[in-house]
Each structure stands twice: as C-alpha cells, then as structure tokens.
C-alpha cells in the first residue's frame, strides 16, 4: 500500500472531491453542494462526485486518485462553528463502526488500500450545519460554510493547507 500524492503522476484522477448528503434534508446537502460546484469547474485534473451516501464502490475511484477531499456536513453545536479541515488516514472499522453515511471516510481509504493497493492523500472538510429538516435550501450560515469550504478545496488543490483540528 502506498501514499502516492508526492510521487505518482500516473493517477487517472489527480484531484478528487467527494461531497455527500441528502439534498432533501436542508443543510445535510452542504457537502454535495460543494462537489456540485467543483464539478462545474470542468477542469481535466479535477473530478468531483456529489453523492447521496458513501458506498464501498467509491473505493476503486479513491484508489485512482492522488489526493481526495471528502466534504460533509456536521451538526454544529451553535452559531460561529468553523469549517473544519482535517487530514485523514486509512483506518479499519472498529467495534460498532460502519461504512456508510455516518461512517468514517477513513474506512473507505482502508478498503482502497486493501483492495487496490493505493491510499490517496486524503482530507475531510466538515461544514457546520444547523437545520436537517425537510427542505432543499441551506441555512444562511451553512451557505457561508459552503463558500468557505470551496476556498479550502481550492487551497488543497493548490497544495496550501489550513488545518483547524
């Protein structure tokens, strides 16, 4: 298993953004909104996947990437909660763990390494969310978080990191 961000230039997907969430559940869609916006860049070196949930099938796509950025909403404790950026490493499923919407993307990285022999350099951007009720609009603060997350994606793409955790 290798981490190929620095060394491998042959990856099919140099920079991968996976944003997930339920677009019918208010702020839960924040991660998907980011991925949809990145997809609109139409850059040949950037692939964006807005998805409903994380599934094991993503493992082979991950394995083709040099760097991956996961984007998801997190339930904020109160106003002023920050957009979080953290570096991820592959991790096995622990007791009670899952591979799913509430699971850790680290499990998918683990799967990519186990099955395809490659774990990309990986980051998780968490966008503060306040409203998960039925609805297709983001709350104003989460919408600002989406804009902030887009800047973080651009920084990660440019290799500039800002870690708050």
């Amino acid at each position, binding site marked *: 298993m290798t981490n190929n961000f620095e060394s491998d230039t042959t990856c099919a997907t140099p920079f991968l953004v996976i944003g997930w969430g339920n677009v*019918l559940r208010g702020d839960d869609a924040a991660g998907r909104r980011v991925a949809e916006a990145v997809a609109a860049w139409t850059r040949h070196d950037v692939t964006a996947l807005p998805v409903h949930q994380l599934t094991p099938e993503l493992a082979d796509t991950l394995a083709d990437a040099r760097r991956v950025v996961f984007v998801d909403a997190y339930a904020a404790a109160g106003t002023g909660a920050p957009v979080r950026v953290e570096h991820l490493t592959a991790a096995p499923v622990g007791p009670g763990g899952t591979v799913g919407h509430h699971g850790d993307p680290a499990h998918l990285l683990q*799967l990519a390494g186990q099955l395809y022999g490659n774990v990309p350099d990986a980051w998780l951007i968490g966008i503060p969310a306040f409203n998960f009720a039925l609805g297709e609009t983001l709350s104003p603060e989460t919408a600002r978080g989406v804009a902030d997350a887009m800047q973080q994606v651009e920084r990660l793409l440019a290799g500039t990191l800002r870690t708050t955790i």
Partner: protein
Amino acid sequence: MAKHIIIDPVTRIEGHSKITIFLNDQGKVENAQFHVTQFRGFEKFVEGRPFQEMPSLTARTCGICPVSHLMAASKACDDIMAVRIPATAAKLRRVLNLAQMVQSHALSFFHLSSPDFLLGMDSDPVARNILGVAAKFPELAQDGIWLRKFGQQVIERMTGKRVHPAWVVPGGVSKPLSAEVRDQILADVPKALTIARRTLEWFKPAIKKFEEEISTFANFPSLFLGLVTPDGSLEHYDGFMRIVDSNRKIIADKLESSAYAHHIGEAVEPFSYLKSPFFKPLGYPGGMYRVGPLARLNVCDRCGTPLADRELAEFRKLQEGAVLSSFHYHYARLIEIVYGIERLSELLGSSDILSTQVRAVANPNKSEGVGVSEAPRGTLIHHYRIDPDGLVTWANLIIATGHNNLAMNRGITQAAKHFVTGKKIAEGALNRVEAVIRCYDPCLSCSTHALGQMPLQVQLRDVEGTVLDEQLRE
C-alpha cells in the same frame, strides 16, 4: 415463567427493525416476532398530488431501489392514461430494471451476506463486514464492488443519475438511448458475466458447509408469488402474476395486475408497521407466500437466457418441487444476476433500441391505475385513484418486503427454536436469527445510510419486563 429476548436493531439490512424471541416457562423458544419499527406514510401524504408526480414521489420510498418504484409507479400512470407505451420505451425500462436488480443483488450478496459465508456465522462480529472480507478475500470483494458498480453505472449512464433518477416517466422514458451509452454498457457486459459466473461457481460448493442453516432458515412449505411472461418465463417488468405451492404446482396463473386485490389481502399486526399480505383464498395466515428471487425461480418454467437456464436446471436439483429453504435466496440471487446481465445485453442489441419514439403522451383517461413489476426483493404493486383533475385521492403500495412478512416471522421462529437455548443468546445464534432476515434482503427504509455492522442490543426479559440479561455490541 415466560421470557423474551429482543434483538434490536437487526443488522446488515436496509432499514430499522428488531426481533423479539419469546421463551416459554421451560426456557425454550416459543415464538419470535420481526418488528419493523419505522413508519413512512407515503400512501397518505401523496394524496392531493398530481398523478404524474407519483414516479418521482414514490421513488423516494427507497434509496436502494428507487428504480423499482419508478417502474411500478410509471406503469400505474400508464394505466391511468390508458396508453400502450412505445416498444423501445418498454425495452429501455426493462434494461434499467435489470440493472437495478443486478446492483441490488450484488449489494445484498457481496456487501451484506458474504461476510457470513466467507468469515463464518460464528466469526468475530467486529470483522464480519465487507472490510473483513476485503482483508481476507480481496478478489471476491473486488468482484462484488465491480459488479455493483456495473449495475449502478448502467443506471447512471441511461438516466444521468445513480440514485433517484427521473428518466422513467408516465408514458415511457424521457430521453432515447444514445449509441455511445449503449456501447459503453455492452463493453462491460463480458466482465460482468465473468464475475457473476465465477461467483456462482464458488458459491455452489460452498453452501455445503451450511447444511444446518439451510435446514433451519425458513425451510418450510409455503406459496410462492412472482411475475411470469405469457409463456411462463422469468419476468421482472410486466407479464402476469403466478402463484405456485410448495410442490411447484400452479394454483393461480395469468393473474392480471388490475385484479391483485381479488387475490391478495393485507392483514395488520399490532407489533409491526409492516403489513402482512396473504393469498385470500387460503385466508390469514394460511395464505402465507414468499416473493423475490427464490419465488421467481420457483414460479417460472424457464429463465429464457442460455446461461441462466443452465443454472436454473442445476438449482432445481436441490429438491423436488419448489426449493423451500430461504437460505437459497442467496443462490437464486446469483442466478438472477446472470440472467439480468444476459437479458439486458440482448435488449441492448435490439435493432430498435436507439429509436427516438420513447414516450406516449396523454391526459388521464381512467380514474384509477395499477402498476406491477418485480423489484429485486419481489413483486411490487402500486395502485392509485385520481379525481377529475388528476389529483391522487387514494394510493396503495404493496412492497416486496411486505409480501414476505409472514414468512420472515415464521422463519426467525424456526431458526430461533433451533439455535437459541437458555437464558443467554450466543453471538453465533444471534447472527443466525438475523441472517434469516437477511436472506430476504428486506428493504425497510428509503435512505438507510449504513453498510456493515451497527450497534446491536439483545435483551432477555421476564414476563414482567425485568431485564434478566443484556448484550450490547458497540
């Protein structure tokens, strides 16, 4: 003193449920109940909506098999409009429905159930998941991932979306198929077929290690219900309903979709939100029947594609009459994957598959409509009534998992009686009772977000409700 054990939640299924096992005064299992603890209410809240919205609305019933609801809903709308959709549209719907079946069966077999087959029913529950399989059997895990992705990509390529596509519409489909998409799908068919056949060749001898489970996982006589073509072949999109008994004797055939209510009743039990359908002529609960891959292979005369027919002939050697053990749902699922790949390949090779005539347009011409198709888990029935303005006034959905409710309850009772003894429930016994439910691949939720192991609570209570024993899997 009577006692009961609660398994809550049941793991590696789609949705939320729990199981209660009741012990008698001697501490032996007396009965077991499968509780579906979530309530959706789709039939009620669609009232007042334009009937044309029903495919999109009801597809939200499920995040795993939205295509199935699109099919049944669109067919019910076709019925309301009183149109016969263009032949190409019907073929495209069939391809989509088969792709849905392939991806759903792959999810069930590889992601949810293969950990039991590969790592063992008694293995460490911490590792008994797809990651555990990937660690020890990476090639099989890769096969599972690839096969599911194949089905999902067919859906995405044809409709533009992997989940909740809106391409199937009343009157047909919204957009014709392009040659590019057809060729992309067909290019993947050989690998998909190779994987499906390789998995079958591994699984057929492997099931010999599960004789005890085969004999006790809902292994009893029952009726079986499924769609067949007019000539009795395996069918997933249209055709007629057929019911056979445990000897595979046909007891009802060529049942029209619109007449389903004459044959199927729906009972309600106080312990579950899931209704209990039954075959009316035999009453409740004597009219218990099963649907899904096992039932479809039991009701049909043939599959209608070469490789699947060869596999069906071997499958039929398992026992005379209908194959009764629900453990063999897994085997049947693999045969249906082979069939699905063969059949969608045939359909995509049709000379008219790229025709641009793919949608009939009409206003409502009837006040009610029924649509029936086969979801991966079994027969799916949508029935709507509308007012003169085309607004839905009443809806009835009978989902595949509901049809199997009576059989699931009897199945967990059979397994619990065999595997559960005493006041404590061993991990292996617990997993086996859950595995009976997983045989049916029940889909209880529209948007379950978990694949793998979830927390599990087991409680042993006496008749007053006092907890005598409790196990938590965290």
